[in-house]
């Protein structure tokens, strides 16, 4: 046992509350600079994506003068709004050591219900949105029930429901889109823009940011959030500590469904239409954002804000590479490399555990 009197040589490793020398410093301070970096990244999972984003913005800004134009920045935020919202739902599921392959499909199903009930059945706009929310909740509940009751792996469950929701969407919509003109203004209002310092921001982007703030609060400040982390960290320990694991898991999938319904609203505004094929890439893109955002696929480690960073990183890379005149295939390549790097980094960071 070392005594606790050593003056800390790594102020950076001290907790966010300050408090001078604490045990954390003593334990985390394992000599080599490399392990010190690792401990720091372990303690702050959003740190590495934060650094990557800042570097990417600077590099792309230098490469292409058009990058920092107001129009371009506005475009990036709009491109990120939907996947960023879906990434919140995905983060919740991945924090429980699960994965949800059906987020895009649920969002699209919900968006078709919103658009079609409002346009074809002439349901009032607000009620149409509520119906979309109910669809999201029901779809999330179905995932949750299958995961908790049948004890099936979330990967398989959501692979199944992905196809089911997709088929339901095509059946319900007759594979036809609903164009913006036919949708009430309240529903497409998420695509409307207002100005912040010359940059056009849509209400959909604002909705996404509000969702991030609310969910970050819930995950960090409420018992439910803490239980989500505990369940993802170690299910059996959480159960023995008295947490109703299945109840937490079910609530996570239901909450994800609600968030996806809000994503549907944002998507309709963004596209100024509701299309049954809008969600195909989003299932995997949301996972990409979460993983690049520093959340561990093994559960229990990560932050909500990290996923916003992850979504922004993907958005900035795609945009920056396009501005640099590179073919779309290089965007895909870059995203692939980012995923591998992020997962490798997580693997390395997790070795902090003894």
């Amino acid at each position, binding site marked *: *046992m070392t005594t*606790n009197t050593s003056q800390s040589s790594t102020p950076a490793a001290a*907790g966010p*509350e300050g408090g001078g020398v*604490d*045990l*954390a410093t003593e*334990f*985390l301070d394992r000599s080599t600079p490399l392990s010190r970096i690792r401990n720091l990244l372990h*303690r702050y999972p959003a740190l590495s994506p934060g650094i990557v984003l800042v570097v990417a913005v600077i590099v792309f800004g230098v490469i292409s003068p058009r990058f920092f134009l107001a129009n371009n920045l506005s475009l990036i935020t709009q491109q990120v709004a939907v996947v960023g919202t879906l990434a919140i739902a995905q983060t919740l599921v991945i924090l429980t050591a699960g994965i949800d392959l059906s987020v895009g499909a649920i969002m699209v199903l919900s968006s078709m219900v919103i658009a079609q009930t409002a346009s074809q059945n002439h349901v009032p706009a607000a009620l149409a949105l509520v119906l979309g929310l109910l669809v999201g909740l029901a779809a999330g509940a179905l995932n949750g029930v299958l995961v908790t009751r049948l004890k099936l792996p979330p990967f398989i469950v959501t692979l199944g429901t992905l196809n089911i929701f997709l088929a339901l969407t095509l059946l319900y919509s007759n594979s036809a889109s609903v164009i913006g003109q036919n949708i009430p203004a309240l529903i497409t209002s998420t695509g409307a823009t207002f100005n912040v310092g010359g940059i056009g921001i849509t209400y959909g982007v604002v909705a996404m940011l509000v969702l991030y703030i609310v969910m970050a*609060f*819930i995950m960090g*400040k*409420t*018992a*439910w959030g*803490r*239980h989500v*982390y*505990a369940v993802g*960290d*170690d299910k*059996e*320990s*959480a*159960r*023995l*500590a*008295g*947490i*109703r694991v299945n109840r937490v898991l079910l609530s996570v999938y239901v909450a994800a469904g609600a968030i996806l319904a809000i994503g549907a609203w944002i998507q309709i505004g963004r596209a100024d239409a509701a299309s049954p094929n809008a969600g195909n890439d989003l299932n995997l893109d949301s996972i990409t954002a979460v993983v690049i955002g520093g959340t561990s696929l093994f559960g*229990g*480690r990560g932050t909500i804000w990290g996923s916003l960073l992850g979504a922004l990183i993907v958005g900035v890379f795609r945009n920056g590479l396009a501005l640099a005149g590179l073919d779309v295939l290089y965007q895909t390549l870059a995203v692939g490399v980012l995923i591998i790097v992020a997962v490798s980094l997580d693997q390395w960071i997790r070795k*902090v*555990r*003894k």
Partner: protein
Amino acid sequence: MTLSEDTRPASTLPYTQPVLKATGLVKTYGRVVGLDGVDLELYQGEVLAVIGDNGAGKSTLIKCLTGAEIPDEGQLHLQGSPVHFKRPQDAKLYGIETVYQGLAVSPALDIASNLYLGRELRKPGILGSVFRMMDTKTMRSNSKQELDRLGISTLQDVTVAIENLSGGQRQAVAVARAAAFGSKVVVLDEPTAALGVRESNQVLELIRRLRDQGIPVILVSHNMPHVFDVADRIHIQRLGKRAAVITPQSHTMTEAVAIMTGAATA
């Protein structure tokens, strides 16, 4: 079986009923028989040790007593009333706290979060009632006080994540949680397994202190000197059954081991 009746602590004779009483507990895992009709009585103010070979069913017994497993057959009585624990939460509500073998702590959460896991305090006023905000500050300061009160000096900073602690310190957190919240019964399954001599002695001291406060303790241990040091009575588990109940006075360690291994009967 009247053996256990005879060996009750003298002070509790003749009228006291057991605080916790299990009768005919059976638990099977497929074809494996974990418990094969086990009885157990725990009396007020005693330390009841449970010993037995590997696979004798000690941990299964503990789990069935505390809601972590639901027994296939058998009854539980708490202070004379029948109870049915469907999950650990149920036993906790009755004031039964348990350290399970292999430690049930969440590595990524800090010490204070682990102590309060599943029973987080909320802030007073609407911050707590409407916004459901946890009272992190109070939970931290309470945790610190509790660790000090329990004499667990090896844990200074309650905001350190469990994964940054040594095996012994993790064990100390698990024991502290049980001791802090166990108002009726404290159950410890191999709590000194990963501990050094000094830390083990701290845990034994803690067990004595709990008993002196009137909280009965069930202690599962492989360590015969520890068992004979703190136990008032010793439940010997063998092949899924209770082979005997002895006391440190009635039997020697060698005799206890002989019963444990089947070389002798009580």
